[in-house]
Each structure stands twice: as C-alpha cells, then as structure tokens.
C-alpha cells in the first residue's frame, strides 16, 4: 500500500478534499469584494470532479480494510456527484441573491462538499469507525445549512431540530455498534458476524444500529423530523436531504444488509417488511393533505423510500440492481421537481400548490418539467419512473413477496392521486392571478435540462439497467 495507490484509489475523496482546501484558501485569501468569483470556480471545479468520477473504479481495500471500494461503490459515488452537481446548478441563483450578500456563499459550498465527502466515506467504509465518521460528517453540516434561509424562523427551527434529532439518532446508533462490538470483538465488516449471529445482545445492538440508519432514510416510524426540517430548510438543502442524503444512506443500508449482516437476514427481513409497509402507507396518507410543495415532496420521498425497501428485501444481485437503478432515476426525478419549485420560489417567493394554479398558461415549459417529474414519481410510462418501479416490484415478486407487492401497488395508486394534484392545479385550472412568466437563469436551465434528459432517457435506454446489474453481479 503505497502513496500512489492511496491517491488513485481514493481519487474521489482526494479530489473533493482538494476542492475544499481551495475554497477554504479562497475564503481566507480572496478580497471580500471579489468573493462572488468563487461561486463559478466552485461549480467549475465540481464539474471536473464529477466528470472524473465517471472513469471506472476498481475493487480495492486500503488502510488494513478500513476503506474499501469496488466498481459498484464507485458508481454510487458518481450518482451522488451528479445529484450534487444538479443541486449546484439549481441553487446558483439562490446562493447569489441570498447567501452571497451575507458572505455565506463560500460556507455553503464548503459545508456541501464536506457532506459529500462524508458520504464517500460512508459508502466506502470497511469498518464501523469509518462508517460512523462518514455518517456524522454527512449529517451534521446539513443541520447548519438547514438554517441558511436567513430571516426565516422556520429555517432556524429546521436546523435545530435536525441537529438535536440527528444527535439522538447517532447516539443510539453508536450504542448499538458498541453492543455489537461487545459481542463480536471486532469492528471490521469483513467476517463481522461469524459465529455470533444469534446472540440476543447482538440482535439488540443491530436493531439500535438499524434505527439510526432508518432515521437518516426517514423510514416510518423514524420520520418525524422530516416534514418540519424539509419545510423549513432552503430548497437546495431539502433536495440535498431528501435526495442525496437518502440515496447515500440507502446505498450503505443495502451494502451492509446484503453482505455484513447477511446471516441475520431472517431478523432484518421481518423488520424491513414492516418498515416498508408502514413507510409506503403512512408516507402516502400524509402526502395526500399537503399543499406546501416542499412538504409535499418530502412526504412523497418518504413513501418512495418505502418502495426502495422492496428491492433490498428481494436481495441478491437483481434486487440490489433494481435498488441502485431506482435510486438513480429517483435522483433525476426528484431534483427535477425541486428545481421547478426552486425556480418558482426564486422568482415569486411562492411555494404553495394553490399558488401554482394556472401555471401552465404563463410558464408552459416549467410546468411541463414538473409534470414529467410527477409522472415519473407516479410510475407512469414512458418516463423512467415507470421502469424503476416495475423492476423493483419484479424483483420483489421474484422472491415471492406477493402480499407486499399488492400493498405496494395499492400505494402506487394512492400516490397517483396526490401526484395529480399539482398537475390539476397547473393545467386543469386557471387563475385570475397566475404566477407571471419566469425567466430562469442559464444555470437553472442546465440543471433542469439534465433532470429532464435523465427522466426521459434512463428508462427507455436499456443498457443503463444492464450496466447496473453487471456492477451488482460482480459485487455479490
């Protein structure tokens, strides 16, 4: 294990840390008047970083097993990069108008990239210490960013709620990890369970550990923090939480359950089954009543997380492939929806569904992006969401989970109702005072365009799924 290996294998991590250092230096050294220059620099560097992450990675372990990676994990990081990149494009206007005058723009990017680096370590963790470092690093800075919507009480409330509850969740999780350590005597993932897998103390520790992760994925009944935090935080952070953070936690949950905790599967399958049913159903039922678009998408993403659990339950290379594929599509879909909401909020300050009435007459293209995103969320062909859902359900059916499948498809139908509500407001109804025509900035347009491209192409273009399946097959 020499220095060259460390740099090339961990190139994503080094790259993002390099960007962080550059931005930090810029913060300190650059003259205050010229700080606005840092924004395009940050975005430009990140574009390079994302492009570089598409060079395939290899299977490797470092630091005695604390850090491990393979092609699949590398692809997961690439997905996270694309997601953050889209968020960067879409939040550009907001950063420029709200944060920059207060000198917080650079802080935003620093915290954001720190969160992303935490997610890298989370996914590449080879033992529980690295996992916990990644877990904390990918949660706590978001709490600070949640309070960035200055002069709004809800935003500060969101930040505090997140910090407190995240602290609670990680404390419980750490306790669980320590109990598991007490039983097995090792923190390394490799061969973690070996002979101890039915020790009651281990199972107890595992449940506590799972609760911490469930908190981060906002599964029901660990979701209570989500609606208020999602609503209070600025839209960019809501997207970060409900898309990127969720994606990363789902990835590591899947990796851990299918490899490290494989022998405990009769325990966690039952737990996951119940969590899936609760999450899908309650997420849906609550989404029915929401009119604030951020809360609406928050509950929608809670319900979608429930669907993802079906893929993890199915397990195997196929189940894992459907999970990654679905998350990939979910990223583009949700960021598309959030992007539209951000664009509308930037221009008009409105984020309630009733204000969207008649939007199609004044902003046809923007409405259409939201319509496409909503169709994809509902799972309607020919957009990608249909394929993501179908394959997920197919994986679950393949393992015989027909009752769960029936509950899932009933929930899909219920969710269609509330996904049609914004469409109803925008297209079916007209208003005396609709939101006037919005001219989005180029950055926002690029962000939205990437999302639309993803939504339209990722489903119909079959090599994407085959590629993902190849990754999981070589992993398992």
């Amino acid at each position, binding site marked *: 294990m020499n220095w060259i290996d460390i740099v090339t294998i961990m190139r994503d991590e080094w790259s993002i840390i390099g960007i962080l250092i550059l931005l930090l230096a810029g913060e300190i050294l650059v003259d205050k008047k010229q700080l606005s220059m840092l924004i395009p620099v940050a975005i430009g560097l990140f574009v390079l970083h994302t492009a570089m992450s598409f060079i395939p990675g290899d299977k490797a372990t470092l630091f005695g097993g604390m850090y491990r990676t393979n092609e699949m994990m590398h692809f997961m990081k690439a997905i996270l990069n694309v997601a953050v990149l889209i968020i960067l494009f879409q939040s550009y206007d907001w950063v420029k108008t709200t944060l920059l005058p207060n000198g917080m723009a650079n802080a935003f990017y620093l915290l954001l990239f720190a969160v992303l680096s935490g997610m890298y370590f989370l996914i590449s963790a080879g033992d529980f210490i690295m996992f916990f470092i990644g877990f904390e690093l990918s949660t706590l800075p978001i709490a600070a960013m949640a309070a960035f919507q200055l002069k709004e009480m809800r935003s500060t409330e969101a930040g505090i709620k997140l910090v407190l509850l995240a602290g609670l969740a990680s404390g419980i999780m750490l306790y669980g990890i320590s109990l598991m350590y007490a039983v097995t005597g090792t923190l390394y993932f490799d061969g973690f369970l070996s002979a101890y897998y039915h020790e009651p103390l281990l199972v107890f520790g595992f449940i506590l550990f799972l609760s911490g992760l469930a908190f981060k994925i906002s599964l029901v009944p660990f979701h209570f923090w989500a609606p208020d935090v999602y609503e209070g935080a600025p839209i960019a952070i809501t997207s970060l939480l409900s898309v990127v953070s969720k994606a990363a936690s789902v990835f590591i949950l899947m990796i851990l359950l299918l490899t490290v905790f494989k022998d405990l599967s009769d325990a966690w399958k039952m737990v996951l089954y119940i969590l899936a049913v609760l999450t899908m159903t309650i997420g849906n039922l609550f989404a029915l009543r929401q009119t604030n678009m951020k809360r609406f998408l928050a509950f929608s993403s809670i319900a979608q997380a429930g669907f993802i659990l079906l893929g993890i339950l199915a397990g195997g290379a196929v189940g894992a492939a459907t999970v990654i594929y679905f998350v990939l599509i979910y990223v583009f879909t949700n960021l598309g929806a959030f992007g539209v909401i951000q664009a509308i909020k930037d221009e008009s300050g409105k984020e309630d569904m009733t204000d969207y009435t008649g939007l199609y007459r004044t902003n046809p293209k923007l409405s259409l992006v939201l319509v496409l995103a909503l169709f994809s969320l509902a799972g309607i062909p020919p957009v990608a969401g249909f394929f993501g859902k179908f394959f997920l359900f197919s994986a679950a059916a393949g393992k015989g989970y027909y009752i769960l499948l029936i509950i899932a*498809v009933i929930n899909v*139908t219920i969710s269609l109702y509330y996904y*049609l509500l914004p469409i109803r407001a925008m297209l079916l109804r007209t208003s005396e005072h609709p939101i006037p025509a919005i001219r989005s900035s180029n950055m926002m347009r690029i962000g939205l365009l990437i999302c639309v491209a993803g939504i339209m192409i990722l489903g119909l273009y079959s090599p994407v799924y085959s590629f993902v399946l190849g990754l999981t097959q070589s992993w398992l």
Partner: protein
Amino acid sequence: MDILTILIIIPTLTVLALIFAKGQKSYRTISAVGMGIQTVYSIYLLTRYLTERAEAGGETMLFRRTVEWFKPWNINYEIGVDGISVAMIILTAIITLTGVFVSWRVKELPKEFFVSLIVLSTGVFGFFISLDLFTMFLFYELAVIPMYLLIGIWGSGPREYAAMKLTLMLMGASALLLVGILGLYYHSPMVEGHHTFSMMAIAQAPMEHMDQLFFFPFVFVGFAVLGAMFPFHTWSPDGHASAPTAVSMLHAGVLMKMGGYGVFRVALLLMPTAAHEIGWIFMILAGGGILYGAFGALRQTDLKYINAYSSVSHLALVLFALLLMDVVSWSGSVLQMISHGLITALFFALIGMVYERTHTRDVTKMGGLLKIIPFIGMMYVMVGMASLGLPGMSGFAAELAIFVGAFQHSGTLERVLTIMAVLSIVVTAVYILRVVGKMLMGPVTNEAFKQMDKARWYEKTAAIILLACIIGIGVAPGGLYKLINESVTPLIELIQKGAL
C-alpha cells in the same frame, strides 16, 4: 422498419409535427392528415395481412418481430398481429380520425388537445400489436393517462371529479394487472432457462393450475375494469359524460375494447384452466351487467349517461361471450367489440353535435329536432337502430353470433344468463326508441332551437364514415367474420388442448 412498427411511428411523427407547429388551423390539419395516413395504412395492412394469411401455414400471428430490450429480464419488444388485432387496429384508426374531425373547432389549447389525443392513440396501437406482456402493459398505461388531461382540461360539467375518478380507477386496475403480469412471468414454465414475458410462449405452456387460480382474478379484473364490468364500471358514466366528444368516442369506442381484448388475449388465453373453473363468477357479474346497464340507461335523461350505460351493457355482453370460450361466441364478441365501437363512437359524435347546438343534454328539454337538424337527426335514428340490433346493421350480426354461440352451452348458468342477455335487447329498444321519440320527433319544444346550425362538413364527414362502416358490416359481415373466425379458431384449439 417493419410493417407494424410504422403504426406507432406515424402517430409519433404526427405528435412531433404538432409540437413544432404554430397556428390554430395547422394543428387540426396536421392531426387529420396524420390520422388519415394512419387509417389508409391500416387498410393497407389489412390487404397485406390477407395475402400473407392466404399463403402462410399454421402461424397464428403474422408480421412478427422481436427486438431484445431488457435482456436481464427477458423483456422484448415483441410484436405481431392476427385477424383480431388487425380489425381492432382499423377500428382505432377510424375512430381517431373521426374524433379529430369532430373536434375541428376546439378552442382552448388546441395543440395540447391534439397532442394528448394522438399520444393516447399511439398507446392503443402499441397495445394491439404487442405480444410481450411488459410492452403491452407499457402501452396500456400510456393510453390511460392522457385521459386525465383530456377530460380535466377540455371536458364539461364536474370534469375534475370525473377525470380523477376515471384515472384512479383505471390505474388501480392496472396496478392489479401488474401483480397478475408478474405472476405470469414468474410462475410460467421457463423458456431456455429464463422466465419470459412473451405471450406466445406462455400460451403454449401455461402455468400450474393452482397458480392460475391465484393470478387469474388479478388479470381478469385488471382488464375488466377497463371494460366497465359491473361492479367496477362506476368510472364510466361520469367519465363519458364529462369528457369532450372526441374523447368519449375514443374511450367508449376503443379504450374499453382494450379491456375486452386484454381479457381474452391475456386472462383467458394464458390461464385457461382457471378460467374454466372460476370464470363462472365473472360470468354472473358480466351477465348481471348486461341487464344492469340496460336498466340503468332506461332511467337516465342525460343523453351521454344513456349512452354510457348502454356501453356498459353492450360491453358486458362482450365479456360474457368471451367467458364462454367457444369459437362462435368469441368470434361474435370480437365482432361486437368492433360493431359497438363504431356505433358508440357515432352516438357520442352525434350527441356532441346536439350538445354544441342546444347546450343541454337533457332529453326532456329537447323535442322535434329532426325538423331543425335533419342530417344529425336522421343519423341518430339510424345509429339507434344499429344499437338495438336491427338486421342490416353491424349490431345484429354481432349479437346473433354471440347468442348462437351462447345457446350451444347447455349448463344452467349459461342458459339463464343467455336468456337474460337476449331480454336486454328489449330494454335496449325501449330506451333507444324513447330517446328518438322524445328528442327528435314530435313538435319543437324550444323555439330558440329553431336557429341552430345545420350539420357542418366536418361533422358530416365523421358521421358518414362511421355509418358507412356500420352498414357495411351489417350488410356483408362475412368478410370481417371470416377474418376474425380464422384467428379465433386456433386460439380456442390451444385452450382446449391445454385443458385436457
């Protein structure tokens, strides 16, 4: 490019042309031209099909093509047609074309209207040529969702409610269908070591009887909801009443037939032993639906509701005949699908024309219209005759075939239901003639109506095309019946072979 995929390419190109076009008049012209080409092409397909059929050996499906799509799942873009599919394709093309004509003067967001309409028809065409369950399901959902926009934006009355109810019920049905399709995929015997979505493969080797019993209700109900089977028909009256004219035409004329088509192509063909064992439950529902729809229509005073319930009744007859699973009944039910499709499309077109002039659909408020709008009135009388099964019109040929086939079954249940079905003709006659008498004959009740426009060229065109088909099939049903019968016979043979 193969002969069948062009059926999807033409509407897609039309949609693209619409998206880039500008100007009110151009939208309807592009749509009319596009659908006109599609109609001509489907007739060309028919001629090619007939020549191929004459030469072909024992192949049930012609013009087949398989393109690998998702290899890991063994999902393929697999297409092919037989006589039944070709007939349904021509039906769809004609109704879409006449629907475009009837919508000639749509005022609000015309571009979006025609785009939605043609996207819908693309879904339908894709549905009828699909031989792979996944592909068929994709096209099925593609056809359902534009309904929400079409009814919600361009409809009348409680359109939001009707649109939402229709969409949720149909998508709920497709959710059940999804469960059934996945069941078919995983429980049918594997082909070359893989599960398959291919309908042809599964038909040759159906799954275990116990598995069939579990999944048959899902697939049957999934399609039967679209076919407005009692008691899942409740989306239909409100949906039809609130929809704009062309949408009602397409929906009652074509989409509901997709339900019937799906029932026999997927539910009955791929799970025949379950159909034999538990089909009687659904037969009772269908048989009940025939009379329920007829009596429901009897009570209505709103023209569209009358026609909607009438459609429920006629489609229940189709489902009933399909469940009998013999050659004559099946041929009759396909013929009825086509015949009723044309008849109901013409009905809705005429109702739309009347509504546009009188601004009411209430029969009690109208009278003596035959004097004021003679063309429309006369057309209405003729299509009414067709609907109650007057010989010389397509309805008679279809219903005759169904009843002949039904009477061959001597079981008590089948006998009772058949007799009920035949009695429904009387009820149909009552509500049709009552409307004709009340609305068209007699003195003019509302003086203001005397100023109404006579029928315009595009309305006449649509009506004449549809009526010509109805009379053509009625006077010379042999050709169409042979087309259908030739394709039904091997299917029934396959079912009966599997049942042994």
